[in-house]
């Protein structure tokens, strides 16, 4: 019989398995490295779309756009999610991590795959952007890198589920799974569906790029790609909502008013959220109007309903917790007395606003078949998803980091005053950035385009000064958000290196 080493966290009382802790640390640090890389190239892209600056040439613009998509939408988010899965299973359930060696295999495969993809892009062998739509062809090692990364992430999900079984078998918890773990389980189920789609689409594409398969069907590629490309963002949604509940509990002691309803909402995500991927194909000529309409006009709204439930449940739980502390005057005393100086709390609120108001509303509306015709392929779309993925998910993950540092790395956060400022710089910057982007898109400015005026094309497009203003606001707010992102990375690294050690 093996023995396992645990320590007890003095703050939360969680029993923490040393091997789970080390894996959480490695995945979290690696995710921040990818965030830094993706953030730096993202800033150069924003400064290129700001026409008055137009920083990069066309070749590096598309190269960096490819890297930005992979580093941010895949590497940063999924590495952090691996840390969340190990935390939500081994730590929250007070158990040991099942098969830590498989966890290390997950880490090494994801690191190797991610690095291979980055090298292929930076060496000019994969200027195909995030979607890599066939017949655009990258070097076959690019596709292999994505496959290896996806296999690693699937192994992480396997370790998560195996840890749940260990916890159940060893009776480390009673009753139902805690809500945060339940949400993480929903994220892991969606992850397995998503990553399987990735494997199904990228394995033949890899063989095609290597010259083994003569032709790839571009229609089938697009359909299956979005089973991976968009669904990977649905893993984020589930993980982000779990983190909302976790942050509510850690910051103000929030408990959901009705946990059964919250659990039902997670089940709705599992059943219907992948269907939302279809909205990428709304102007695709290969699918029938009825097919598009049923998926994005009806079924997708069952996943939207789940988000609506969480959008009420999280603030309501927070409000009830603060009211129980005595802040009961009027409708909003609780909001005034909330712990705004705690960066995790302000990150939670900004993430809710960014995801719900900016990203959620625009996502549902732009995903409507008829309206999509005036939004598809202009800057409204990246404006929408920067609100969901960056102002929403990334903001929530950053908020969680302020607890991961003391609880898992056992270091006191350095410069807490600067840490309090960080969510406002980053979240505020990203919200203005997303809004300005959507505003410019409303005037028809195309997305993913280095030459928006068509100077070198067969015809030229001239936009009014309002578009120049929008793009200038977008560029300036990108700089502000980048400062917030840089401050986050700096404080996280400084805490790891110089933060006061907390003894368990």
């Amino acid at each position, binding site marked *: 019989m093996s023995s396992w080493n645990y320590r007890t966290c003095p703050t939360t009382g969680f029993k923490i398995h040393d091997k789970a802790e080390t894996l959480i640390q490695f995945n979290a640090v690696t995710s921040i490295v990818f965030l830094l890389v993706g953030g730096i190239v993202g800033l150069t892209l924003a400064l290129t779309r700001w026409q008055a600056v137009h920083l990069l040439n066309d070749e590096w613009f598309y190269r960096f756009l490819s890297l930005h998509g992979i580093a941010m939408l895949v590497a940063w988010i999924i590495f952090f999610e691996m840390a969340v899965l190990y935390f939500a299973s081994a730590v929250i359930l007070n158990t040991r991590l099942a098969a830590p060696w498989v966890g290390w295999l997950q880490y090494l495969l994801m690191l190797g795959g991610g690095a291979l993809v980055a090298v292929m892009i930076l060496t000019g062998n994969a200027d195909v952007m995030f979607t890599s739509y066939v017949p655009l062809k990258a070097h076959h090692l690019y596709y292999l890198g994505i496959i290896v990364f996806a296999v690693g992430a699937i192994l992480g999900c396997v370790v998560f589920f195996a840890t749940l079984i260990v916890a159940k078998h060893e009776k480390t918890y009673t009753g139902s799974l805690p809500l945060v773990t339940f949400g993480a389980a929903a994220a892991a189920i969606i992850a397995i569906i998503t990553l399987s789609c990735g494997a199904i689409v990228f394995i033949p594409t890899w063989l095609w790029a290597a010259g083994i398969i003569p032709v790839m069907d571009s229609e089938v590629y697009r359909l299956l790609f979005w089973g991976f490309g968009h669904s990977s963002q649905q893993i984020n949604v589930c993980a982000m909502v779990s983190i909302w509940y976790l942050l509510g509990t850690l910051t103000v002691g929030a408990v959901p008013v*009705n946990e059964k309803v919250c659990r039902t909402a997670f089940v709705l995500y599992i059943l219907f959220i992948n269907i939302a991927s279809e909205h990428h194909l709304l102007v695709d000529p290969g699918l029938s109007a009825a097919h598009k309409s049923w998926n994005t006009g009806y079924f997708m709204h069952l996943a939207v309903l789940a988000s609506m439930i969480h959008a009420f449940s999280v*603030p*309501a739980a927070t409000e*009830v917790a603060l009211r129980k502390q005595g802040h009961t005057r009027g*409708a*909003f005393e609780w909001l005034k007395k909330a712990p705004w100086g705690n960066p995790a709390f302000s990150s939670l609120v900004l993430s809710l606003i960014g995801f*719900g108001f900016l990203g959620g509303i*625009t996502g549902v*509306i732009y995903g409507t078949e008829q309206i999509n015709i005036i939004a598809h392929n202009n800057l409204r779309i990246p404006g929408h998803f920067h609100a969901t993925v960056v102002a929403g998910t990334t903001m929530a993950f950053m908020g969680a980091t302020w607890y991961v540092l003391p609880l898992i790395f056992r270091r006191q956060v350095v410069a807490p005053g600067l840490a309090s400022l960080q969510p406002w710089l980053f979240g505020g910057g990203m919200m203005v950035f997303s809004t300005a982007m959507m505003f410019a898109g409303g005037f028809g400015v195309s997305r993913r385009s280095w030459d928006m005026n068509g100077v070198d094309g067969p015809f030229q497009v001239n936009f009014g000064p309002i578009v120049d203003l929008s793009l200038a606001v977008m560029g300036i707010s990108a700089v502000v958000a980048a400062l917030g992102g840089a401050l986050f990375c700096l404080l996280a690294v400084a805490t790891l290196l110089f933060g006061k050690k907390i003894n368990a």
Partner: protein
Amino acid sequence: MDLKPEEHPKGSFILIMIFFATFVLFYLLNWKYLSELWLVG
């Protein structure tokens, strides 16, 4: 969860109503944009 009357989440309910109103307004605004570009009849 049993809540005393002063613990009911009234503020969150108001915030959610503002959210719904924003949703409806933005939805209508986009249909208006579409109707200007895509004339029917």
